[in-house]
C-alpha cells in the first residue's frame, strides 16, 4: 500500500514533464503596444522642464494681477488715472478723424 502511494506521488511529481507551451493570446502584443503608447505620452509630459512650468505659471499670475488692477480702476470712475486724464485732455479717445479735421 505504501509502495503504491509512493509510486503515485512520484508520478504526480513527474506529471508536468514534457508539457507543451501554452499559446499566447494574440491580443497580448496589442495590449502591450497600447500601454507603451500611453507610457510615451506620460513620458513626454514628464520631460517638460520645471523651469518652463514655473515661467508659465508666473506669466499667468502676472496677467491675472494686471487684469484685476485694471478692473478695479474701471470700477471707480471718480479716480481717473493720469493716463486717462491725458487721453481726455488731448482728445485721443475720439476716433473720428473727420470730426477732428473739421474742428481745425
Amino acid at each position, binding site marked *: 500500500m505504501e509502495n503504491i*502511494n509512493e509510486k*503515485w*506521488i512520484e*508520478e*504526480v*511529481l513527474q*506529471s*508536468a*514533464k*514534457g*508539457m*507543451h*507551451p*501554452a*499559446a*499566447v*493570446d494574440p491580443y*497580448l*502584443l496589442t*495590449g*502591450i*503596444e497600447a*500601454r*507603451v503608447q500611453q*507610457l510615451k505620452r506620460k513620458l513626454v509630459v514628464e520631460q517638460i522642464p520645471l523651469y518652463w512650468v514655473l515661467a508659465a505659471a508666473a506669466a499667468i499670475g502676472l496677467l491675472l494681477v494686471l487684469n484685476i488692477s485694471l478692473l478695479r480702476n474701471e470700477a471707480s470712475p471718480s479716480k481717473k488715472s493720469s493716463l486717462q486724464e491725458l487721453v481726455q485732455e488731448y482728445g485721443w479717445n475720439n476716433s473720428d478723424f473727420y470730426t477732428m479735421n473739421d474742428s481745425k
Partner: protein
Amino acid sequence: MLNFRDDAVAFRAFILEHQTRVFNAVLNKVQHVQDAEDITQEVFIDVYRKPEAYRGEAAVSTWLYRIAMNKCIDHLRKKQRRRGGTATGEKEPMDFVHPGIVAENREKARFLYKAMRQLPDKQQTAWVLSEMENLSYKDIGEVMNLSLSSVESLLFRARQNLKKILSGLSKNE
C-alpha cells in the same frame, strides 16, 4: 543595450521572441490565465521603461525570468492579503492545470499544482523554473540570485515538501 524607445519594430520582435516563455513561466507560477497575461504585459512594460536595468551580465531570458518571478511573487502576496483582508474574501483558486499538460497526466497534474500552491515562495519558484521551465541550476541561481548549492537545497526541500503535501492530499481525496 536594450533600449526600445525609438524602435517600435525591434520591441515588437523582442516581445514576439520572448512572450511565450515569459507567459508560460508566469502561468505555472500564478495558475491563472488572466493574471498571467496581465503580469506578462507588465514584464514587457518594465523592459520598455527601464532598459538600463539589463546590464548584460546574464542572458536576456534569465533577466526576463527574474522580472517575471518577482512580479508573480508580488502579485500572489497582494492576492493573499486581499483574501485575508476581507470578511467575505476571494474564493480559493480553482483547480488549475496548465493547458499544455499531456492528456493522460492532467488528473495527476491537478494534484501537483494544488500541492505547489502550498510551497513557500522560493521553493515554488525554484520548482517551476527547474521542473516546468527546464532551466539549469546555474540559470535558476542567476534568476533567483542564489548560489548553486542554495538552489540544490531549495529544490531538495521543495521535493520533500511536495511529497509530504501530496501524501496528505492522496489520503483526503
